């Protein structure tokens, strides 16, 4: 619905309103705080719940992941590929852990599904690359943007 306005005679004259408008822009020009973030030097802090680049949490340089296959099961984009193996101490672990990051929709369901708190989404949001990357296990094990 259109708001019905009845402008007074001074408003219909426009010039006074224009001068007021000019004063507003001048005030913004001179005094107002600028909202621009100087990006590479200054960075915006996102909420800790922000879902960015993935990593696999390690404890004593051993990954938490037990290759339980819950994350590839829950993943709606089907972008996680795990090949499970067995360590000497009969512990199950992923031989291969790959995330096809181009297919990922950053829904964070892998993080929710993980019983071992292994796969996590960090705060990192600059993920542009020159090639179509698939995140390998070595890449994911680097504790980038570790949330602890």
């Amino acid at each position, binding site marked *: 619905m259109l708001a019905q306005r009845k402008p007074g005679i001074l408003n219909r004259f426009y010039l006074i309103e*224009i001068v007021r*408008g000019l004063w507003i*822009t*001048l005030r*913004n*020009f001179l005094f107002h705080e*600028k909202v621009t973030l100087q990006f590479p030097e200054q960075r915006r802090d996102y909420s800790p719940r922000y879902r960015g680049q993935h990593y696999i949490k390690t404890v004593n340089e051993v990954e938490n992941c037990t290759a339980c296959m819950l994350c590839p099961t829950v993943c709606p984009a089907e972008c996680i590929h795990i090949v499970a193996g067995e360590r000497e101490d009969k512990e199950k672990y992923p031989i291969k852990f790959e995330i096809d990051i181009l297919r990922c929709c950053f829904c964070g369901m892998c993080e929710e599904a993980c019983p071992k708190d292994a796969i996590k989404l960090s705060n990192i949001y600059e993920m542009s690359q020159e090639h179509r990357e698939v995140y390998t296990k070595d890449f994911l094990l680097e504790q980038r943007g570790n949330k602890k």
Partner: protein
Amino acid sequence: MTPEISFMLIKVAIVLTGLLAVVPIMLFVERRGSALIQNRLGPNRMGPFGMFQAACDVLKFIFKEDSTPTHVNKFYYTIAPWLVVIPAFMTFAVIPFAGSLSMDGNHFNFQVANLDVGVLYCFAIASLGVYGIIMAGWASNNKYSLLGSLRSSAQMISYELTLGLSIVGLMMIFQSVRLGDIAAAQGETLFTVAGLNVPKWGIFIQPVGFLLFLISVFAETNRLPFDLPEGESELIAGYHLEYGSMKFALFMMGEFINMSVASALIATLFFGGWQLLPGLAWVVQQVANITQVDVLLVTVLFQGVSFVIKVAFFMWFFVWVRWTLPRFRFDQLMNLGWKVLFPLGLVNLFVTGILIYKGVL
């Protein structure tokens, strides 16, 4: 070479380089000014305060591929940008940028051409600019371009009436159309209030005329709030839609130079032109005393400075208004031009005539 010819060439060089320098400066002012008004920072990486950004922009324009679409009329498409730029440069010829100087028997007139038709020449040449825009729109063979140029022709022709009418009162008062005479006449004192001399500037004797001139000059230069020829939201880019690289840059140059000519006209007609700004007369005396230079030379120099300051203020005013007011609708534009400004111009003329007859002005 006789001194007259060499002095003439120097004047031409000053005006040309000054006008060409306006383009990068205005690019910078427009980009950073708009950013600061919108609480952004704008381009600030190249050089101090991002001042060299304009040079980068120009370099980019020069090195871009100068492609011509296949569906255009090549001849008109190519000459249209020039028909916008060249009249814009030509208009500045009659504008005096400093007072005259008599020295060693030589008379120097700081005005490229002191024509008898003066300000009429300005309007005549400025209205040639519309041909460039119509040609650009027509030759582009694109419906949006054509609509843009149609709007532009209707707008410029409608507002030229008001533009002409608004300064007739001024011509009647100063009894001249030569811009040099008008600027010189504005040095007289109109009246004195509490020891302060109010000069006989055009704005004090023709306030309504100034307002009309200001508004129609915005329409003539196709600047916001009257930039309907290039209304992005409905016409994409209007008449320069099919242009790229240096040809587009020429349109932009034309716009900025038109702005500077318009600002110079406002300053000359209504703000005393090269008359010294209040307070500068004292500075001139001090500088002449300290440097032991002839007072006349210093005066001419500071007259030039005053003129540049006045023009610069109105250039800034163009940018300022652009980022304050929204664009008019086309019917609003026509209503304003024909039903408000045109009758107001006639009334202003009538009242001015009565006042001159009664001997008030």
